[in-house]
């Protein structure tokens, strides 16, 4: 055991770069949290999912042959969707505030903002459901034409992401009510927040590319 080496700081962080400021108790090679890294990798991967759906939509929306039902310009109600967009944007703010609150150890404030975020998310999904029913009444069903299929699939995927997010938000809210979402779990809230903001930026894309650019 001639050259036994004892490493006090297991991080010796070979290429941690700026992460070196972390304390010696850090446990991973990069000094970054596993879960947070996994979330970012997942979000990077999700970019290709939504990229594919948005491209599919763009490619197909103007290809409706004459007489096969309404196209994009016939059904979109920009003022209504704009309100939805503001709602989702605002929910991103409340999410960020919830993360800020839990990092300061303010569980109550965090809880309030989590619930607000969930409600705003639900308002958005409700708005989407209303929008869909209006479109169906105007004659655009899922199978009516290629625009309908592409539009409902793209926005439906986004809506599903929001709905999954709402369920997680409610889960976090219940955890918080039971006193199990303290400052030591701040990272859980933060990581969930990443997901929520990602859903918001996807909507930023969809709102512009699908609704506003004619």
């Amino acid at each position, binding site marked *: 055991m001639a050259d036994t080496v004892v490493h006090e700081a297991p991080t010796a962080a070979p290429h941690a770069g*700026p*992460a070196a*400021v*972390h*304390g010696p*108790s850090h*446990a991973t090679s*990069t*000094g*970054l*949290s596993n879960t*947070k*890294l996994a979330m*970012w990798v997942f*979000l*990077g991967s999700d*970019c*290709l999912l*939504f*990229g594919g759906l*948005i*491209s599919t939509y*763009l*490619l197909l929306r*103007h290809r409706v042959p004459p007489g096969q039902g309404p196209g994009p310009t016939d059904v979109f109600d*920009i*003022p209504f969707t*704009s309100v939805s*967009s*503001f709602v989702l*944007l*605002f929910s*991103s*703010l409340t*999410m*960020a*505030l919830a993360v*800020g609150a839990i*990092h*300061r*150890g303010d569980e109550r404030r965090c809880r309030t903002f989590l619930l607000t975020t969930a409600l705003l998310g639900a308002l958005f999904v409700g708005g989407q459901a209303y929008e869909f029913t209006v479109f169906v009444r105007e004659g655009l069903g899922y199978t009516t034409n290629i625009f309908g299929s592409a539009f409902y699939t793209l926005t439906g995927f986004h809506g599903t992401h929001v709905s999954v997010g709402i369920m997680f938000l409610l889960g976090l809210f219940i955890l918080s009510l039971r006193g199990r979402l*303290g*400052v*030591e*779990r*701040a*990272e859980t809230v*933060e990581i969930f*927040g990443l997901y929520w*903001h*990602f859903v*918001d*930026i996807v909507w*930023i894309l969809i*709102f*512009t*590319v699908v609704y*506003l*650019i*004619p």
Partner: protein
Amino acid sequence: MSTETSPQQAPVTAADHEAHQKEHPSDWVYIQVAIWLGIITALEVSTYFWDDWFGFDASATGVAVALILMMIIKFAGVCLWFMHLRYDHPLFRRVFVFGLLLAVAVYLIAMTALEFWSSSSASGA
């Protein structure tokens, strides 16, 4: 960038935690960012009415370019501030930006190969 340390250091106290919060933006910063994002969104929505208000052709390429620029600004705003990428470890940024750029590149090439640009300008005009 320091938030992720904290959960691993039990016992954690709020005070401990506070020490790591220097680079975290305050609530006020978030609110400011949100206000800017709101203003840009309002601008975006207003393009829809330009036709009525100023007799501006909303399908003009210039409007589309302006909309895409505003979209990119909003996108970056949420990523950099709300998602902390501005403050966080560069590895997170790299992973995400790699996915993002890859998606943009791959799908742009695919759309080009599918002759999207010629067909959409034909039917879009």
